[in-house]
């Protein structure tokens, strides 16, 4: 089945130690998104890629970076995690055009713990 995969599902990192979260997709979608979801809150969009065109949300901290080396993969890098960055990180994809372009397909998420 075509899907969105996130690895790892659970990640523990130390305060200030860089960490990378991974997302891959077999849907061949043009657009990939990264969301941060803190406990009991709605997902908050960090940034998204339209193909290789990177779009940062205005309030996304500089501590968060992203890379998209090809259509299938997208990475979220947190350069110096703080305790406040502990959250669920969700990756999503969508088509760019067509009747289903408004739908986003989500991965299972990576739960990040910062110690």
């Amino acid at each position, binding site marked *: 089945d075509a899907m*969105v995969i*996130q690895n790892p599902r659970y990640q523990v990192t130390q305060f200030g130690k860089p960490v990378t979260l991974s997302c891959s997709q077999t849907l061949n979608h043009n*657009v990939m998104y990264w969301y941060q979801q803190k406990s*009991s*809150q*709605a*997902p908050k*969009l960090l940034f*998204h890629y*339209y193909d290789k065109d990177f*779009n940062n949300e205005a309030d996304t901290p500089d501590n968060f970076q992203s890379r998209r080396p090809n259509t299938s993969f997208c990475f979220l890098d947190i350069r110096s995690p703080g305790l406040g960055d502990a959250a*669920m990180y*969700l990756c*999503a994809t*969508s088509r*760019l055009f067509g*009747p289903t*372009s*408004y*739908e*986003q*397909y*989500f*991965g*299972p*998420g990576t*739960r990040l713990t910062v110690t």
Partner: protein
Amino acid sequence: AQSVTQLDSQVPVFEEAPVELRCNYSSSVSVYLFWYVQYPNQGLQLLLKYLSGSTLVKGINGFEAEFNKSQTSFHLRKPSVHISDTAEYFCAVSYLYGGATNKLIFGTGTLLAVQP
């Protein structure tokens, strides 16, 4: 600007009872509306969507929602809930960003707590 309001942060209900989760949106342009469900430590799963056409939309797991343009609402309903429906439910609106990609604006979520 687009926004989504889910007034109920938690809805307790007994098993086999009907339930309605409320969602209101504000937008100055045409929107597309979604309901997603999130089980503990899982990603978001699409329950149903309204893009156009019939205002009554049927989704997975026996859920349905009705789009009401005059009331700017998109309430989610199920006639008889199960214990397994216990989860967080998010209403979302999609709008066009920059003429190309679409963004989702989420409500704050409603925890549906089904009790035996």
